[in-house]
C-alpha cells in the first residue's frame, strides 16, 4: 500500500473488512475463531478493534492502530481465517481510511476519503463521500490518477460502488 503523498492524504490508521453474515455452525465456528484471535492480540500490536453488524447483514471487523502495517497484518489474518473456513465467497470488501490534510473538508463536509478493496474483483477503487449519497468524482479521479499505476486498480468506474455510512468512527 502506497501513501498518497501527492494528494496530501494521510492514513488515519483505520481499516476494516466486511463479509456477509450467514447462519450455520461452520460460520459460528469461524466467528469464534475470529473473536479468539482478536482477544489474544499481543499488546505489541497496539491495535484497537471492534466487531459490528450493519443493517445489510454484513459483519464488520474494524481495526485502528498507530502503524498501518499492524492494521494490514490484522486484516490479512482475519481474511485468512475466513478463507480457511471456506467462506471466501462471503468476503465483500476491505476499506482503508485517509484524511485530507491539504484542504480541510471541501465545502465544509467530511474530509474522510477511502480506498475500497473489492474481493470479487481483486482490486482497489476510491470512495470519497460528499454529503448525502453523493461522491466527489473529481477527487476520486485524482486518486485514480495518483495510485492506479502502483496498485491493482479498478479502471471501470461503473463498478465504483459506494459503501455508505461506513462504521469506521474512531475507536480510541
Amino acid at each position, binding site marked *: 500500500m502506497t501513501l498518497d503523498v*501527492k*494528494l496530501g492524504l494521510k492514513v488515519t490508521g483505520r481499516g476494516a473488512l*466486511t463479509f*456477509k453474515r450467514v447462519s450455520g455452525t461452520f460460520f459460528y465456528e469461524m466467528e469464534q475463531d475470529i473473536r479468539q484471535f482478536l482477544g489474544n492480540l499481543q499488546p505489541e500490536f497496539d491495535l484497537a478493534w471492534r466487531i459490528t453488524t*450493519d443493517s*445489510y447483514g*454484513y459483519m464488520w471487523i474494524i481495526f485502528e492502530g498507530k502503524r498501518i502495517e499492524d492494521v494490514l497484518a490484522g486484516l490479512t489474518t482475519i481474511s485468512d481465517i475466513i478463507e480457511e473456513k471456506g467462506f471466501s465467497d462471503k468476503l*465483500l*470488501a476491505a476499506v482503508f481510511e485517509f484524511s485530507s490534510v491539504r484542504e480541510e473538508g471541501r465545502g465544509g463536509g467530511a474530509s474522510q476519503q477511502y480506498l*475500497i478493496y*473489492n474481493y*470479487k*474483483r481483486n482490486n482497489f477503487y476510491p470512495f470519497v463521500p460528499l454529503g448525502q*449519497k*453523493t*461522491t466527489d*468524482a*473529481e477527487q*476520486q*479521479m*485524482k486518486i*485514480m*490518477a*495518483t495510485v*492506479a499505476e502502483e496498485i491493482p486498480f479498478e*479502471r*471501470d*468506474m*461503473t*463498478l*465504483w*460502488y*459506494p*459503501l*455508505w455510512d461506513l462504521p469506521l468512527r474512531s475507536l480510541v
Partner: protein
Amino acid sequence: MFAKKQPWQKRDTGLTVRMIISFAVLSVLYIVFLSVLAYVGVGAIAIAVIAGILILAQWYFSDKIVLWSTGAKIVSREQFPELHDLVERIVARNNLPKPRIAVINMRMPNAFATGKTPRSSIVAVTLGLMDQLDQEELEGVIAHELAHIKNRDVLVLTLASLFSMIAWYMMRFGMYGGMFGGHGRRDNQGGAAMLLVLLIAIVTWIASFLIIRAISRYREYVADRDGALITGKPSKLASALLKISGTMKRIPTRDLREVEGMNAFFIIPAISGDALTNLFSTHPPVAQRVKKLMEMEAAMS
C-alpha cells in the same frame, strides 16, 4: 437496471454528427463535380486548378460553414454579458486577441473553436455547457478552445486534410486509368504502373486518415495543457471534461452491499475495445486526458 440504457449512454452527439455530415456532403459534392469534369474530358491540370480553388473557397468560408452547420449564433455583449466578461478576463490576462463569441441552443454541453487566424476566430459554447459547468470549469473549457486558436489547430488540420484529399483524387484517377485503360493503346507496363499509383494512393489515403486523427488527438492534449496553463487550474478543466463526457454520472450511487447479490454482474470481464476505437477517434479518451491534467495539477501544487 443493467439492461435498460441509462440517459448518459444515449449520449447526444448531435453537434459532431451535424458537422461531419455537412463536411461529408461538401466533399462528396466536390468529388462528384470533379469526376464529372474528368468524365467530360477536362484536362488533369484544369481539374487540379479547379480543385485548388474549391479548397481555397472552403477554407475562406470555413467559419460560415461551421456556424451554419452547427446552428451557432454570434452573440453580442448585451445578449450574454457574463460570457463576454469571462472570455475577456481570460484573453486580457494572457494577451490574446478576443474571439467572437457564439452560442448554440443545445442542451448537450459542448464547445468548439474555429477561425482561419487567431484574430478572426470564433469560440462557440452550447447553452447546456453554461448550465452544467460552474464558473471555473467554464473558464477551463474556454481556455482550452482559446489554446486551439492560439496553436492554429484549424490550419494544421486543414493542411493535414489536404494531403488526404490529394491522395483521394489520385486514387480516383488511378481507378479511371484502370477502368478505361483497356481500350486505349496502352501496353501492360502502363497498366501495371497505373495499378501501382492506385495502390500507393490508397495506402496514402488510409495513412493520412489515421495520421489526421493522431494529430487531432495530439492537438487535444496540447490544448488541454495550454488551456490549463492559461487558467492555472488543470483540475477544473478535468472536472469539466468529466461532466461533459457524462463520466461523472457513470460512477454509481447504489451501495456495494445492495448490488453484491447480482453476482452475474461481477463476471463481466473488463473488455477493452479501446485500442481500436482510439485509433479512429479524433479526441483522446477522457480518462487519459483527466489523468494528464491531474498530473499537471499535482506538479503545480
